[in-house]
């Protein structure tokens, strides 16, 4: 049996056509954000083996359909399959795993100009601007969107496929840049 609070949160998320923040959920169901967090965890667990999933991007939550049934939902909606070129996928991978990052960060890793791939990903709303880095030139920072999570069937960024090489094995871009800047 689920708690009344989990059910209350579920009913609000059911009618919401856009992601709802935890603070907003807490306000409308009359609970503390901490209680809502517990309820969300409970709710997410209860969707195991159903046609729904509880997805979140940061602290924003939304009910989505289970990836296993994407074909059926796509058939109903008449949705097209998204196609992304290998070059755009590389740029997207860097942004997804290292967000927020600048265009220069992406280019330093890929070793090629990434204007076009970033433009394409922006057009498809897979990435979005996330403010600017407080550095010379105040470059734009990029991060992934809800569309990204949905298109790749991810419940959250924690669901990103893990690479064989652990993240810690190589220096993060920021650290390396900082070292480079310092010695320059």
């Amino acid at each position, binding site marked *: 049996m689920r708690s009344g609070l989990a059910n209350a949160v579920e009913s609000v998320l059911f009618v919401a056509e856009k992601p709802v923040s935890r603070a907003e959920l807490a306000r409308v169901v009359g609970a503390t954000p901490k209680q809502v967090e517990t309820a969300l965890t409970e709710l997410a667990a209860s969707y195991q083996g159903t046609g729904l999933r509880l997805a979140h991007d940061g602290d924003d939550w939304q009910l989505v359909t289970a990836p296993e049934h994407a074909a059926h*939902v796509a058939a109903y909606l008449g949705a097209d399959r998204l196609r992304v070129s290998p070059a755009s996928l590389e740029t997207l*991978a860097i942004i997804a795993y290292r967000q927020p990052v600048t265009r220069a960060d992406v280019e330093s890793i890929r070793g090629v100009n990434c204007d076009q791939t970033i433009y394409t990903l922006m057009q498809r709303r897979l990435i979005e601007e996330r403010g600017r880095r407080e550095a010379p030139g105040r470059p734009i920072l990029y991060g992934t969107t809800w569309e990204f999570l*949905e298109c790749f069937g991810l419940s959250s960024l924690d669901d990103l496929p893990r690479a064989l*090489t652990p993240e810690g094995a190589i220096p993060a871009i920021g650290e390396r840049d900082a070292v480079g800047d310092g010695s320059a």
Partner: protein
Amino acid sequence: MLGPEGPHVTVEGFDGPLDLLLELVEEKKLDILTVRLGELADAYLARIRALDALPADEVSAFLALASRLVLLKARSLLPSLIPLAETDEGESEEDLRARLLEYAVVRERAGALGDRLRSGERGFHREGGTPELPPRGGEVLALAAAWSKVLALASRPREEGVVAPGERYSVEERTAEIEAIVAEHAQVTFTELLSTEPTLGWAVVTFIALLDLYRRSVIDLEQSELFADILIRRKQAA
């Protein structure tokens, strides 16, 4: 080494110089962690020579890495060059190796993301706006109560069913009547004034009489909520 604008061009199936270098390492089944990158200079240059005419931006990126590889090879052949080389070239073999490793991870992740995309296993959210709801939530009991009132109204005698000449209702008379009632009872409800079987004319005359009394400050009118019974109170003499 990166051009400012222009579409990305895939060179011979390679997404940039690092991609080509990584491809060479994998083709030769070498370990990225231990391979001497300078030894790949010849193979790398051979690949570049084989390329057709390329946009300048792309060529420069490939050539920049080629020069780095040649430098690494030269260093390994002539160790005495190392001190000189390190002063003007920031990127050592280990730096390049780190970049290559980092890129290898990115390519692997891009592959994993591509697999997910091709599997078509994605999520969908509910589309469409929130429906326009009436301002108040529906109350079943209120609906039932309203229906009872309608039934009660329907069972009341109709105007035409009652023998009542128009002259019977006089606003002046009714005003005097109500004034007398209020003087006696201090407060009375509109429903009470209408009595049990009011006709429409009777209700209208009573209502106008009340308005007249209110205008003359004989009574106070009060209604707790919409459609609730109107409370008529005798106004206290100031």
